[in-house]
């Protein structure tokens, strides 16, 4: 009876996790109905998952384990986030972010603790995330079939047309897909029924295709490089590992090339704005000539033709924004402006975001070098055993690697509303579990 209860609880937890990830993705959707339903459902499902995890932990408390250093790392990072309300620029906003982080970390700790001696639980939970990603990708495909104009962002002079599926923009859904790709690969490589492995491989190909069609460079890089982590950790011969790694790199190169095939709309050599354009007013409206939100790198300064040319390796506007964000962060280098208060002021030509699009710089801005060091230490504590023991759950570690790589191009470690906020923290805790959980 006890065994059956455990199986049911695990299955229920995995199902709720799948729904939770799907609700989080829906909350970031471009479809109004999904967005409206996703936000409240996400909170409710987090509570349900927490309840199930608590019941599992209490009922099978002898099997519940979490390494003390992992618990200490989670507690320390969370505590720093809370303490940062003491110097935060926006204390209430910081407190809300703190509560979100704490809630997700508590649930993640409860869930992960139950997987210590139960590889089946880990597998089911990972499957839950994979299924959610696959359903969201399939939903995007269905939307494209019925209304392509909603599923594709039209081409502009900066960007070629990009597939966004159900995501809010083309860079949204690839975050989730990139995190799910290593899980799919691990399921395809793991021993088991041929049909299940084929299904996992098909899912992997579908996710990779969706990421490629989105043109998300960060998603593409994170998704494929995390596959290398799975290949590296998977139990296989050196020759097979080398062949699999080569196949992954070749697939990455192919997909990267595919993203360059569609073209942006032609630019009609707009001249740099004149120093002082004549206007019908007594003074010059400076915003029409040199807007503050696009001053750095503006043609007004560079005297080059206006317009931004995007390419596979071009990242000049991102680099400018990143340099500016680091400069801004160094204004309060030790402790930042408070957790969640990513008060980035965009002043960069060709950069269209309200945040620095880098999770690490984002954390540096929010909780300073001390907070960033604590985050890195926590991640290292969680992942260190994985690097020492190859038998550890490679799917979770691969997915965490994808999340950490995504952090280089997206700022989401603190953002409860982000599509991968819950999966990332949960996977980090799952990946921290000892080798028995594979």
């Amino acid at each position, binding site marked *: 009876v006890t065994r059956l209860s455990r199986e049911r609880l695990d299955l229920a937890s995995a199902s709720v996790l799948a729904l939770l990830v799907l609700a989080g993705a829906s909350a970031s959707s471009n479809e109004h109905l999904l967005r409206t339903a996703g936000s409240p459902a996400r909170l409710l499902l987090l509570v349900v998952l927490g309840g199930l995890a608590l019941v599992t932990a209490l009922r099978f408390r002898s099997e519940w384990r979490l390494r003390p250093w992992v618990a200490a790392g989670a507690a320390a990072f969370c505590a*720093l986030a809370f*303490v940062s309300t003491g*110097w935060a620029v926006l204390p209430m906003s910081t407190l809300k972010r703190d509560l979100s982080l704490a809630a997700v970390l508590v649930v993640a700790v409860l869930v992960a603790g139950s997987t210590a001696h139960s590889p089946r639980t880990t597998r089911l939970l990972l499957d839950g995330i994979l299924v959610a990603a696959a359903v969201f990708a399939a939903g995007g495909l269905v939307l494209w079939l019925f209304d392509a104009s909603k599923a594709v962002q039209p081409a502009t002079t900066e960007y070629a047309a990009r597939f966004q599926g159900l995501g809010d923009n083309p860079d949204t859904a690839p975050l989730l897909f990139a995190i799910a790709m290593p899980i799919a690969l691990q399921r395809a490589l793991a021993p088991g029924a041929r049909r299940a492995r084929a299904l996992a491989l098909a899912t992997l190909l579908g996710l990779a295709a969706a990421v490629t069609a989105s043109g998300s460079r960060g998603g593409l890089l994170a998704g494929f490089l995390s596959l290398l982590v799975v290949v590296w950790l998977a139990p296989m011969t050196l020759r097979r590992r080398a062949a699999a790694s080569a196949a992954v790199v070749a697939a990455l190169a192919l997909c990267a090339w595919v993203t360059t095939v569609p073209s942006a709309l032609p630019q009609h050599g707009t001249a740099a704005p004149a*120093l002082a354009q004549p206007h019908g007013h007594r*003074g010059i*409206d400076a915003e029409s000539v040199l807007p503050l939100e696009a001053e750095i790198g503006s043609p007004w300064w560079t005297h080059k033709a206006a317009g931004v040319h995007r390419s596979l390796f071009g990242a000049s506007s991102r680099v400018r924004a990143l340099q500016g964000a680091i400069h801004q962060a160094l*204004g309060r*280098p030790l*402790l930042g402006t408070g957790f969640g208060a990513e008060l980035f002021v965009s002043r960069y030509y060709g950069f269209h975001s309200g945040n620095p699009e880098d999770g690490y710089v984002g954390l540096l801005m929010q909780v*300073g070098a001390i907070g960033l060091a604590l985050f890195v230490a926590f991640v290292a504590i969680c992942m260190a055993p994985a690097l020492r023991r190859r038998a550890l759950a490679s799917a979770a570690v691969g997915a965490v690697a994808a999340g950490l790589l995504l952090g280089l191009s997206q700022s989401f470690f603190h953002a409860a509303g982000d599509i991968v906020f819950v999966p990332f923290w949960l996977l980090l805790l799952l990946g921290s579990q000892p080798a028995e959980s594979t």
Partner: protein
Amino acid sequence: MSTWWQRRSVLWAAAAVVALLALIPLGRWEARRHAQNEIRGIRSVLAAIGPLDQPSLDAYRIGVGPGLDCLLYKRAANPFALEICFDGAGRVVEGYDRRGGSPRIWSLREDPSASTVQIDGARALALVKRLSQPRP
């Protein structure tokens, strides 16, 4: 053994709590230091501008960022050489010096209330309004 271990754990936890709480004054000091640096820069821009109403005042902005209005002053051939942005209460929140090859910016946009640099808000707003009037 167990008691010793428990006592050690409690001591570590207490030390961690004390260390965390000690960060609050440090964070506040850092915020003050940052604000003082920015205020110094904003004051230097104001000093370089001189009186707000002068012939070199030739450009304006309305409602940028968190609802700031700005006045821009010409120096040599640069019509946007010096700029201050202020809120409705007359607090100067940003200062720009574009007299070099790239802009130098001092900003408290993330926390306008930290600015102690005050100008005559009504007078500054009147100047913005005058500049945004149609040419006669």
